[in-house]
């Protein structure tokens, strides 16, 4: 039973498009929500993260939107580029859980030139 549900499983967009990846969680004790980017053969790399005291965070072309009441958060990639093609994972953790992080199943993004 996955504590963090991620959708879609895969996504194809054209260069310049705005892919959106969604995640939902159940555990209200979660207080840290990161997104990771993973290229084939590499380990996941932290992309951007948000805490529940804010509803949006931007870093460059990446934006997290957070809806605490709905227990949902999403990643938007502005002006997507072929180099953004990767697998993206959302995650959630809580300090009370000794930083036990739960991951979504991942979204494979393809950005076509």
């Amino acid at each position, binding site marked *: 039973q*996955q504590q*963090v549900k*991620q959708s879609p499983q895969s996504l194809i967009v054209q260069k310049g498009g705005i892919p959106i990846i969604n995640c939902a969680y159940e555990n209200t004790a979660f207080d*840290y929500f*990161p997104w*990771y980017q993973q290229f084939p*053969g*590499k*380990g*996941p*790399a*932290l992309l951007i*993260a948000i805490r529940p005291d804010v509803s949006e965070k931007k870093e460059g072309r990446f934006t997290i939107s957070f809806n605490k009441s709905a227990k949902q958060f999403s990643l938007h990639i502005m002006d997507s580029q072929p180099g953004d093609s990767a697998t993206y*994972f959302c*995650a959630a*953790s809580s*300090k009370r859980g*000794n*930083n*036990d*992080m*739960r*991951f*979504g*199943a*991942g979204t494979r993004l393809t950005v076509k030139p």
Partner: protein
Amino acid sequence: DAGITQSPRHKVTETGTPVTLRCHQTENHRYMYWYRQDPGHGLRLIHYSYGVKDTDKGEVSDGYSVSRSKTEDFLLTLESATSSQTSVYFCAISGGLAGGGYNEQFFGPGTRLTVL
């Protein structure tokens, strides 16, 4: 990869044999984690350590044990490997003084393990 190395990077073994994977960090981070990554499951926590000799179970700990005798090293052992343990294993670290935050986890390059 934030000063994290994993060894070996690839391993093929047979069912019933013991296997030990090593994670080594040069960042002096307090927390270390072992995850496995399987299609459709994302990453799932196996075990973690919150200090030397302090470890605890994660979500999928059955069939695995860990040890941490030094800050920089975290070992994952499969006592008797099974085909269901074929996976990619990632080590992660967090909680260093310059780590940017308590929660931020940084991942190693992974070990691909195949159990025949």
